[in-house]
């Protein structure tokens, strides 16, 4: 027993310090922008001269959380994947004023990181921006800048939050709709009753940020209450243990910063409604959504599809996914991303 414990501890320490698998590109940098030192990893293959730049969710998430083998291994085999920890998130650090927690600053940070990576890889690469959840809002905000979008060959928005007032209304309706169905079917009655009653008590056109935060919690719970939603392999006990004891993150500082960042950006996020500006995005765009995504309902995907200014736009709904189709249906999800990139790179 004692030997097993020693071997386990040594294995954890080994993994904490261990090198990655054999990758063509495997670099880690910090990019400093207005007081923030933001962690940036480049991992993958240079063979196809293509970069996919991941804009993580949150606000206050971590880019490396997306580095699940079933999702990113196939991407790293073909492309250089940029994992960027945004200001105040993940392994990013810095001493700066809290006024810099703003969407325009995050857009500026994103562009600076892009220019830095470009200086490392060269200017002959095709670039694709991928944003999930809050990353969908940040990526959309970025793409509204004509100069910035011209430097990318494509934009991939997955379960994105590009219109928060609309999102809140759709989220409320979706929770009530499925909640009532489940109540009639007699499934998880206690939980659904609480969720439905809470949502019905809200004014659908005037949902404040506290109500929005509560609905967000219910939305994650709702996914777990439905049998139709596949549960992925992303967050296994082994993954959680490795994150806690052997990841590149300092979990406590990571958690504090992420929570703080979420609070600081909340007001900015809740007021963001970009639907009527999406016509400015004229580059090929792929929209990926989980059918049972209560957090950012699939109707937002249709909203983007209807408003984008490009003819090359596609919406794919994953029938057995919630807010994280890259985890629930990774094979289909990655295949769709690769097909899109291969078409436009």
């Amino acid at each position, binding site marked *: 027993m004692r030997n097993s414990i020693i071997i386990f*501890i040594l294995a*954890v*320490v080994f993994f*904490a*310090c261990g090198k990655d698998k054999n990758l063509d590109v495997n670099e*880690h*940098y*910090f*990019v*400093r*922008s207005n007081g*923030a*030192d933001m*962690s940036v*990893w480049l991992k993958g293959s240079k063979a196809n001269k293509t970069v996919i730049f991941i804009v993580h969710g949150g606000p206050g998430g971590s880019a490396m959380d997306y580095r699940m083998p079933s999702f990113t291994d196939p991407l790293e085999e073909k492309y250089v994947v940029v994992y960027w920890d945004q*200001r*105040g998130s993940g*392994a*990013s*650090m*810095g*001493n*700066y*004023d*809290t006024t*810099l*927690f703003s969407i325009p600053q995050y857009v*500026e940070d994103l*562009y*600076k*990181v892009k*220019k*830095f990576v470009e*200086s490392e890889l060269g200017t002959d690469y095709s670039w694709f921006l991928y944003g999930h959840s809050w990353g969908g809002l940040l990526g959309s905000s970025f793409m509204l800048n004509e100069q910035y979008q011209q430097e990318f060959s494509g934009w991939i928005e997955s379960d994105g939050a590009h219109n928060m007032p609309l999102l809140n209304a759709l989220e409320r309706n979706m929770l009530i709709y499925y909640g009532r169905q489940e109540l009639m079917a007699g499934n998880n009655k206690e939980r659904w009753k609480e969720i439905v009653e809470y949502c019905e008590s809200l004014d659908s056109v005037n949902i404040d940020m506290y109500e929005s935060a509560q609905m967000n919690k219910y939305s994650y719970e709702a996914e777990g209450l439905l049998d139709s939603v596949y549960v992925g392999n992303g967050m296994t006990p082994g993954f959680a243990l490795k994150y*806690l*004891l*052997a990841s*590149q*993150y*300092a*979990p*406590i*500082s990571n958690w*504090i*910063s992420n929570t*703080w*960042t979420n609070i*600081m950006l909340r007001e900015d996020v809740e007021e963001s409604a970009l639907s009527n500006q999406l016509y400015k995005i004229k580059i090929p765009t792929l929209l990926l959504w989980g059918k049972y995504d209560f957090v950012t309902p699939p109707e937002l995907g249709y909203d983007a599809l209807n408003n984008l200014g490009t003819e090359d736009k596609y919406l794919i709904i994953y029938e057995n996914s919630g807010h994280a189709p890259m985890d629930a249906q990774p094979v289909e999800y990655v295949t769709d991303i690769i097909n899109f990139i291969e078409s436009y790179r």
Partner: protein
Amino acid sequence: MLLGFIVSVNAQIDSTQQYLPITISYYGDLYTHPGLKLSTEYVLGERVIEKKRSKGRVKVRHKQYVPKLSLTYTHHAAYYNAFLLGGEMNFRKLKPSSGFRVDKILGMGYMRAFNAGKTYEVDDNMNISKVPLAGHNQFFMSFAFGFSKLFVETKQIPLAWHIRQSFTVYMPNNGAFGGILGFEVGVSYFPTFKKKNNEK
């Protein structure tokens, strides 16, 4: 103010406690992220508490006030290499018959975190420049709780061991603060200790 209070408490210190130890510890943030801590300490004040027990026995405990000076290094791959230079105050309870000690430690000091990775600054004109020795200056506060055992008096060996769990808050970081859950295990050596010759 804190030191004034301690000095006024008492000065009845056993001479064997006055040897300045050199302490070296493994310092692990969340146990597995490795680091090293060097420290020394001095017993500044002591109060002897005697409690009468049944059958005429007396329970003796020493409450000690022990300032410490420490330098800690902690490493997180892809995050930082940090050095913490600080002063600590150990509010210690010693059982003299066994050398067993309970430590409650408050500390504060200066932390310098060096980014664990090459750092490049991109200015508003998109000019890129390398930042040598990039990192951040921070203030930290810490609290630790643990146990230690001293062999100086009981076995005439100039050693002690300790095991502690600490929590350190450093600031500013990302507009707020960061935290380290540190686990310490180590030994102290008393270089100036001389064995008593009254044995045998």
